[in-house]
């Protein structure tokens, strides 16, 4: 029973990494990045290439997300910043165009065959919890997710750069008036968001089949998570991810017929009762 929840939480960690970046970018830049799932996919592919070249999972885990961060920089610097003043629909269209282009680019370069490097030996063991077997890799994922959460909290709450980010998210005009160079800040936030999605993808590489379009499934769930938790709220993204993970795991156990609908039902409920999300800030 409890074990099922633990497994659900470990699944939720990939979602958390993607949702964190998505929420961060929206919070600061007010851009809903449809292509965030594609950055997750790129994280998996780049990590896979790095694995092929180096033979080391750890190198792959380091290199993959960094390359995705560079792609994030190119996306922001080359394209997104040109449409900040355009209506939101144009921004959405642009990021959606990236989804299609990146999917096809990956298909072109790597082919449609599922890639799947082996799980690193150090993490392919398992621990016994009661009578149930929990893979070491799942413990590792739980650890990484918690670590990233803690790291983001320290970064945003305890550093001066984090302070600037929070200030800009709270009031863009005021921050600008006080001398914050918003354009440079936006670039850095987008790079950080892309890195988080890339990290999620890199972590999924040895345990999930990598395929073009793999980002499309996670982006929908990530949207549910940020709506649940509140657009722009990292705490909301964290709690939202865990909630979706638990709903999925326990839904399978107790009401498998409705499992698919549970996340959406939770989202609909939040939208009715608290439209700004569990941890979002009410606007206006």
């Amino acid at each position, binding site marked *: 029973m409890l074990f099922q929840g633990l497994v659900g939480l470990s699944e939720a960690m990939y979602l958390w990494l993607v949702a964190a970046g998505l929420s961060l970018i929206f919070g600061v830049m007010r851009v809903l990045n449809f292509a965030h799932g594609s950055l997750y996919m790129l994280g998996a592919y780049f990590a896979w290439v790095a694995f092929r070249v180096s033979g080391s999972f750890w190198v792959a885990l380091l290199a993959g997300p960094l390359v995705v961060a560079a792609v994030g920089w190119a996306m922001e610097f080359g394209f997104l910043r040109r449409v900040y003043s355009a209506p939101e629909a144009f921004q959405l269209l642009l990021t959606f165009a990236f989804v299609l282009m990146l999917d096809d680019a990956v298909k072109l370069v790597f082919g449609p065959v599922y890639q799947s490097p082996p799980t690193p030996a150090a993490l392919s063991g398992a621990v016994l919890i009661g009578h149930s077997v929990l893979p070491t890799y799942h413990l590792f994922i739980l650890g990484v997710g918690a670590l990233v959460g803690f790291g983001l909290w320290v970064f945003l709450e305890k550093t001066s750069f984090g302070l600037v980010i929070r200030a800009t998210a709270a009031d863009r005009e005021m921050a600008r008036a006080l001398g914050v160079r918003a354009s440079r800040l936006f670039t850095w936030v987008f790079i950080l968001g892309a890195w988080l999605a890339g990290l999620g993808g890199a972590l999924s590489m040895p345990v999930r089949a990598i395929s073009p379009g793999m980002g499309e499934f*996670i982006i929908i769930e990530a949207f549910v998570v940020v709506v649940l938790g509140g657009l722009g709220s990292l705490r909301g993204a964290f709690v939202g991810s865990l909630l979706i993970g638990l709903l999925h795991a326990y839904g399978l156990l107790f009401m498998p017929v409705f499992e698919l609908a549970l996340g959406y039902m939770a989202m609909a409920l939040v939208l009715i009762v608290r439209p700004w999300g569990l941890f979002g800030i009410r606007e206006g």
Partner: protein
Amino acid sequence: MAPRRGTTRRRFLKSTALAVAGLGLPRALGGATADLKLKKPIKIGCQTILSGPLGGYGEFMRKGATLAMEEINAQGGIGGSPIEISFRDEELKVDVGVKNARYFVEDWGADFLIGIDSSAVALAVGEIMPSLDRVLIVTHGATEKYNEDLVFKRHVRQCFRVCVPVYQDGIASALVSKDLPVKRWATISPDYEYGHTSWRMFRAYLKRFKPDVEFVGESFAKFGTVDFSSHISKVMGSSPEGIFSTEWGGEAVTMVKQAKLFKVFEQTKAFMIGMGAAMDVLQGLGADYPDGVWASGRYYFGYPDSAENKRFNDAFRKRWDTYPSYPSETAYTAVQALKKAVEKARSVETEKVIEALEGLDLDRPAGKCVIRKEDHQAVYAVPWGQIRHDPKFPMPTLTNLKLFTTDEYYRKPPFAPVEG
């Protein structure tokens, strides 16, 4: 037979390079059959899954159909008319599948339809075939409702199928399982028609063969599942001795990898994956595929040991630089069956081609087969086997092949209901 096959192969090798040009000068290269004065070109619409985590699967179907087209065109087409095949992504969605079928026939001008991976799509497209007035040959969707209900009971005569139905996943699997030292079975399977109908059939037939079995757990995963962890932990909570699964494509790859992490293969005595011997799964899992897993498909490249299968394997590997997967064979066979039927009917008219296809004998890579007149189902046997890692091959292969006759495991008209 032998010398003729040799010349055909040589001619094919020579003409592969000319495949595109061959479209333009079919008469010069072949001309074995007389010009039947049919419309030119003969158009075949093929839909299969070409995107997402199962997209690698459809890629193999595209390769098989394309190879058949190139071979036929290099030898003069069908009665002097070259074939043209168009591919569309089925997305495993009923509305998309129906839209594709309508587009193919009404806008593109298809003479025949082939393909379809999803059972639900096969049933939905099957429903509209009388109004579209075209022959549909399904090459993957496997629900028994297609041949048993749609064709046999409701006489939708336009519908045919050249791949083995869920009898492979649900009945041949039970024949393998009855001799395994496993009493407690559980499943992790796709949450749609194919997954549910296979599991229902497996339970009904295994219970018949071995009455003391128990079915202790089940977890059905939606299409697009990227993580099977909570499905695995749920099912393992019921302490099964054997796992039966009909996951396929990239989802089968993910499931096996994660089952391995959860030490499922150490905790159970048998693991069966109906479509586990598909080439995309063999290649996708590679070294990670545990030895001894029971797997099958709708064709396995290593069976049978026949001249036609060897020729097909050679031609496929030469053209695509990979071993063929089963949808490659079924799509290849669908196109070849259409050629044979059109030549027999001397027409592309739906009614005449239907009559020609009924009872048609085929010498296909998967073996000799006949298209059963009553339910328009191609009848041929495919083995089950156990995964092993043979250094002679770049991917895992099957060993300990278990073969049953079609008489043993194909359900027959009038199709008594599957109880259970």
